[in-house]
C-alpha cells in the first residue's frame, strides 16, 4: 500500500515490477493509467481542443484522502499490494496523469479494486484541473458520470 503525489512522470512497468517482486503469491496485476486527452467533451457534445492542463491539489490533504481510499479498497477486497501515483502541475496531451495498481491472487479482486480506486479518487481526492484551450483557460467541471460511477460503490 502506497500513495505518491508528485510533479514527475512515472514508469508503469517499473512500478508493476516493483509491486510484484518478492511476492510470488500474486497471480494478477491490474493497472489503470489516465492520460491528458487532446479533446475535452463538455455536456456530451461541446468539444474543446486542449493544449495543456494544470492540476492543482491540496498538499497533505490529498495524500491522506488517497491513503483513505486505498485502505477502503483493502478492506473490501483481498489485495496483496496496491499503489496510487497522481501527478500535479502542468501536463500536455498524451502525458500520464494517474496510475492505479492493484495486485491479488485472483483477477476479480484486482479488477474490482482498481476500478473502485479510480472511481472514488475522482470524486473524493482534492484535485482540480484547469485546461488551456484556444478560447482561454477553463476549470474542468465535475462530471455527472463520475458521480454515478463513484456512487455505485457506496453500499460496499
Amino acid at each position, binding site marked *: 500500500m502506497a500513495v505518491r503525489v508528485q510533479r514527475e512522470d512515472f514508469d508503469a512497468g517499473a512500478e508493476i515490477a516493483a509491486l510484484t517482486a518478492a511476492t510470488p503469491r500474486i497471480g494478477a496485476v491490474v493497472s489503470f493509467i*489516465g492520460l491528458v486527452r487532446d479533446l475535452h467533451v463538455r455536456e456530451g457534445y461541446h468539444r474543446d481542443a486542449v493544449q495543456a492542463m494544470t*492540476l*492543482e*491539489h*491540496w498538499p*497533505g*490533504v490529498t495524500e*491522506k484522502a488517497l491513503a483513505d481510499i486505498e485502505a477502503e479498497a483493502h478492506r473490501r477486497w483481498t489485495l496483496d499490494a496496491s499503489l496510487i501515483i*497522481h501527478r500535479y502541475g502542468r501536463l500536455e496531451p498524451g502525458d500520464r*496523469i*494517474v496510475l492505479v495498481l492493484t495486485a491479488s491472487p485472483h483477477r476479480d479482486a484486482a479488477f474490482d479494486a482498481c476500478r473502485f480506486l*479510480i472511481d472514488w*479518487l*475522482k*470524486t*473524493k*481526492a*482534492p*484535485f*482540480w*484541473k*484547469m485546461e488551456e484551450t484556444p478560447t482561454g483557460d477553463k*476549470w*474542468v*467541471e*465535475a*462530471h455527472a458520470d*463520475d458521480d454515478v460511477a463513484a456512487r455505485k460503490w457506496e453500499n460496499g
Partner: protein
Amino acid sequence: MKVKYFAWLRQKTGVAEEDVAPPDDVRTVQNLVDWLAQRSPKHAAAFGEAKVFGAAVDQQVVQLDAPIAGAREIAFFPPFTGG
C-alpha cells in the same frame, strides 16, 4: 482563523490563503461565506458565482450549515476533478 481558496475560488478572490477574524454572529460555513463576500469585490465575485463549491472545516469536508466554532482552518473549493 485561516481561510484557504482553491482553483477558481483562489483565482477569483486573488488569494490562496488569508487570516480572518469574523464576528461572533458568524456561526456556520454559510455565515462565513456571506461575511467573506463583503470583504472585497473579488470575494463577492468569487462567492457570487452560480457555481457549486464545497467547504472543509479543519480538513474535513462539511455541508454549508456546519458550525465553525473553534475551527482553525476553513477551505473553499470547487468539486474535485482529479484522476
